[in-house]
Structure formats: structure tokens, C-alpha cells
């Protein structure tokens, strides 16, 4: 039964997502585009938090690093937007390795606060216009928009479909990750990192690997985000944004459908209830508490699919 839903679920989801822009006005199209981008970032966060089990509360740093790499290359050095993409993936991934390296041995909550720290240092560096290229508190604007030749009339839809393409690529990477040696190693790591080490998994390497992979994917999402708004500014990447991505993974439950649900609940619902502006986050806070009480493992918890049943069944 579950298998059938999954087989039908993904094609159906993508058909709906592909047709969605026809039904939306420009405000909701922007919300839908951001929904897709946030889903990518949340999936990248899930690699570190959900799959490798490290309490990372600084994913907005890598997201922002990708967006700023694109913005600086495009606005300051005049590269075409698409040409900045490889750099916007590689730079966050390198930072992922450099930042994770010294802190990877920290226990859960210490790691959490250090990643918050990285995020805050990053945003403050942007605001203080480090190196004179980040544009200070206002950020960088007036970036080039990606256009598809011959389809200039449909320009307003381009950011959405670019984001959707990036999401498909991310899901493809994740699917391969899950059934690979690395994916299994990360799974054991989360369950018990001492035991994982004792069966010959190099825990340090895989932990850093997960950070780098998560950072690279978040960086790609950053490029797409810079393309959507043709601007970047520091507050879009501050640590409260990281808190949002963190909550999405936990509320949703560390599986692809769970994360889609999580982004919907944590980002789209508040947009829908925008008219109750002053009350919405008050009620939203209660909703977060009750969700966790009623479904402590998240709305749609992950199941690790590739292990033969005999290993997982009890009794």
C-alpha cells in the first residue's frame, strides 16, 4: 500500500507542481517559488540534521553564502547568472568542510550553539560590508534575471520553474544518497555514532561529508533565491531563518513528504493567514507545541527503506 502511494505520489506531485503557476496570481506565484526553494534548503538541512543526526542550526549561512556568491559574481564582476552556479555550490561546500572540521567532535547542543554562532558571524560580516562587496545592510540588488530564449513573454514564470528544476535535481541526489554506501553510513551514524565507528565507519569523514553536501545543495538554493528576487540582503539569511529550517525538519519528520509538509505548515500557512498578522505567530507557537506533543517524531517520520525487513522487525 505504502509503496503504491509512493509510486503514484511523486509523479502526481510533480504534475501538480508543474501546472500550479497557471492557477496563481503573482503574489502566490512568489510564495510558491519560495516554497520550492525553502524545500530545497530544508532537504539540505535534513542531510545534516535528519540523516547524519548532527544538531545544525546554521543552515541559512550556507544558503546565504550561495546567494551572495551569485550576487557578487553577477553584480560586481558581471558574470552571467548561470555561470555563477558552480561557484555558488563549491564555495559553500568548501566552507562546510572548513567550518565543520574543527567543531565536528562537539556533543549535540554544543554543536548547535556553535552553528548558530557561525550564522551570526556571517550575517554581521555581511552587514558590516566585509571586503566592500556585500553591500552592507541593504544587500545587493539589480541582479540579472535568468531568461529562457524565445520565452520572454513568460518571464514571470521563470524563477518558479528554475526552482522546480533545482528541487528535482536535489531529490535525485537524495534518492541516490539513500541507496548508496554514504547514505547507509550516515544512517548508522545517526543511530549510534560509537557503534558506527566500531564497525569501521570513519565517522569524522562522513560527518564532514554530510555538512559539505548539505552546504552545496543549500548554496544552489541560494542561487535560485537570488534569481527569484534579483536581490540579496543579510536579514534573509539570519539565524532565525536557520531556526525555521531546523523546525521544518523536526516538525515535518525528516522524510521527503514530511519536509514538504513541514515547509507547507511552517511557511505557506503563515502566508495564508497573513490577514491575522498580529495573532498568527501567537497561535502558530501553540501549534508547534501541540504538533510535537501529538507527533513527537514529526508529521511524517522517515523510514529507512533499504534495510531488509528481517533486521528491522521486532521479536
Amino acid at each position, binding site marked *: 500500500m505504502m509503496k503504491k502511494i509512493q509510486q503514484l505520489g511523486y509523479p502526481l506531485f510533480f504534475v501538480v507542481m508543474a501546472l500550479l503557476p497557471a492557477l496563481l496570481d503573482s503574489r502566490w506565484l512568489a510564495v510558491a517559488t519560495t516554497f520550492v526553494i525553502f524545500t530545497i534548503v530544508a532537504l539540505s538541512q535534513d542531510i545534516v540534521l535528519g540523516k547524519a543526526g548532527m544538531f545544525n542550526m546554521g543552515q541559512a549561512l550556507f544558503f546565504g553564502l550561495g546567494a551572495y556568491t551569485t550576487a557578487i559574481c553577477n553584480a560586481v564582476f558581471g558574470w552571467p547568472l548561470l555561470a555563477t552556479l558552480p561557484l555558488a555550490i563549491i564555495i559553500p561546500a568548501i566552507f562546510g568542510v572548513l567550518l565543520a572540521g574543527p567543531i565536528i567532535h562537539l556533543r549535540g*547542543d*554544543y554543536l548547535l*550553539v556553535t552553528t548558530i*554562532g*557561525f550564522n551570526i558571524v556571517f550575517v554581521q560580516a555581511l552587514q*558590516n560590508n566585509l571586503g566592500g562587496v556585500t553591500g552592507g545592510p541593504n544587500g545587493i540588488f539589480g541582479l540579472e534575471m535568468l531568461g529562457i530564449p524565445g520565452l520572454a513573454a513568460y518571464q514571470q514564470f521563470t524563477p518558479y520553474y528554475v526552482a522546480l528544476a533545482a528541487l528535482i535535481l536535489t531529490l535525485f541526489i537524495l534518492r541516490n544518497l539513500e541507496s548508496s554506501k554514504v547514505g547507509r553510513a550516515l544512517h548508522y551514524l545517526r543511530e549510534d555514532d560509537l557503534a558506527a565507528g566500531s564497525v569501521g565507519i570513519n565517522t569524522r569523514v562522513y560527518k564532514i561529508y554530510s555538512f559539505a553536501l548539505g552546504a552545496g545543495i543549500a548554496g544552489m538554493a541560494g542561487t535560485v533565491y537570488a534569481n527569484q528576487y534579483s536581490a540579496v540582503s543579510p536579514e534573509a539569511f539570519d539565524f532565525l531563518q536557520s531556526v525555521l529550517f531546523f523546525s521544518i525538519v523536526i516538525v515535518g519528520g525528516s522524510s521527503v513528504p514530511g519536509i514538504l509538509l513541514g515547509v507547507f505548515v511552517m511557511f505557506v500557512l503563515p502566508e495564508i493567514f497573513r490577514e491575522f498578522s498580529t495573532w498568527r*505567530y501567537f497561535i502558530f*507557537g501553540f501549534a*508547534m507545541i501541540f504538533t*510535537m506533543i501529538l507527533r513527537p517524531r514529526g508529521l511524517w517520520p522517515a523510514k529507512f527503506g533499504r534495510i531488509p525487513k528481517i533486521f528491522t522487525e521486532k521479536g
Partner: protein
Amino acid sequence: MDIFLQQLVNGLTIGSMFALIALGYTMVYGVMKLINFAHGDLVAGSAFVGLFVFTQLLGGQVSVLVVVGVFILTIITIALLGFTIERLAYRPLRSAPRLSAVVSALGASMVIQNGIMLLWGPQMHIFPELLPTIIWDIGGVVVSLIQVLIMALSMILMVGLYLFVEKTKIGTAIRASAIDQDAARLMGINVNNIIVTIFLIGSSLGAVGGLFIGLYYRGITFNMGWQYGLYAFVAAIIGGIGNIPGAMLGGILLGLFNAFIAGYISSTWADAFTFILLIVILIVRPTGILGERVAEKV
């Protein structure tokens, strides 16, 4: 040299406030292994409750009795609020995965923060001048009555707490619960009551911290809890979270560090330097300055 002494005084003042707030984080963490993200917002709430108690309940006229009244009523309100949060948001999640409790704490933080905004509005409020503005000029170093009071009162509270935890029966029970909840239960300690106790004490100290913030900085906003809460939390981590003298040491250290950064370098980089300090300390000592190295259990 003047700058040095001046920033020393300022640093000790803000450090005392950080330390008071950090104690709330560290006590809850010590027993429950939970980062109580709502604590910072309780601190912010305390400043607003103090404002309300002073202007609406006690008539807005400064006298010794009124100031004492403001402190007592605010502390009681915030302690009850802390108690309620524990009941509603944390107790049902005792046996849940740890991260679920963290998200529940984030939810509680959001509720309090937006609750303050709904009651008092998003604009900045000015905290009343509860103490006369007396300023001493000691050889070029300016010290105000408020600063002296903050340092003295914080010191008294911290010493009091330390003696309470080290010397009394309840304090011993708190320390036992922090080491091993199950073993404590077997020794006849009611761990639920201990958790309620630490929430009451932690919230009360946070309430005093919030009133101090109001008195010292004057401008209070509904979302300031995150800012001060994060600093206090960093102080608790630097000292070694779960360790009570550690939180005090961490708070004072962080306050001094912040004041010297603001005095000698630039206040626009203060946050960044604070977190760089934190990261460096954690790289050198992964469990904070006074934190014990805990062997991982298999």
C-alpha cells in the same frame, strides 16, 4: 587606562545580568538536558510585567516600598509563567526525542514573544526610572547607582543560589537529579517536583535579570528576549552548561569581553567577536571552561 576602568565597570554590570539569566538556562539544562529557548522571552516578559505593575497597579509613584513591590510581583508572575510553560510544553515531551522538545521550546518562545506583542504592541517602550539617577565620578570613571545595585544584588543572588544548591536538602536533590534522574528517583527524590523547583528558581532569576535590563537600558521591545537570551545562553555554554558556578563565570567573562570589544574595537562587530570567542573556547575545551568531560555512554 580610563577606558579600561570604565569598560571594566560596564562589563561587570552587563556580565552580572548575563550571569543571572544564564543560571536559568544552565539549571534547566542540568536536570532536563533541554535548551529552554523560552527563557529569553520570559526575561523580556519580565521587563514588560514590571512596567505594567509599576504604572498600572502601583500608581507610578517611586518609593522604596513600590520598587520592592514591583520586583516581588514581577518575580511571582514570571515564575508562574515559567511553571506553566514547563507543564504545557515540556512535561508531555519528557520521553520524546530530544529535538522534539527543542522545537516545543521554540514554539513556547514564539507564544510568549507574540503574546507580549499582542498585549503591549510592537513599538519600543521606555522602562520607568525606578531608581534615582545618582552618578559618581571616581577619577574619570563614571559609576551609577543602578550599576552598583545591579552588581551587588546579582552577587547576593548568585551566592545565595550557590549556597542553596550546595548546602540544603533540596539543593542536594537538584544535584542528584542532574547527575542521574533514574537513580535519584530510586533514592526517593520526586524528580517532577525538582524540575518544577528549578523552573521556578530559574524563571525568578530571569525575572530579576529582565528588570535589570529595563532599569539599565531603559528601552524595551517585545523581541529583545532572543538577543539577551542568546547572549546568556552563550555565557552558560562558555562556563560549561549544567554547571552553576560555570554560568556565573561565563556571564561575567562574556560581559567583560563585550564591553572591551565595544570600548576598544567597535560595537558593530560585538556579536561576531562574541561568537568567535565561544567557538574558540569550545574548540579548546569542548564542554566549556568548568564543564565536566562526560564519557559517552554505550
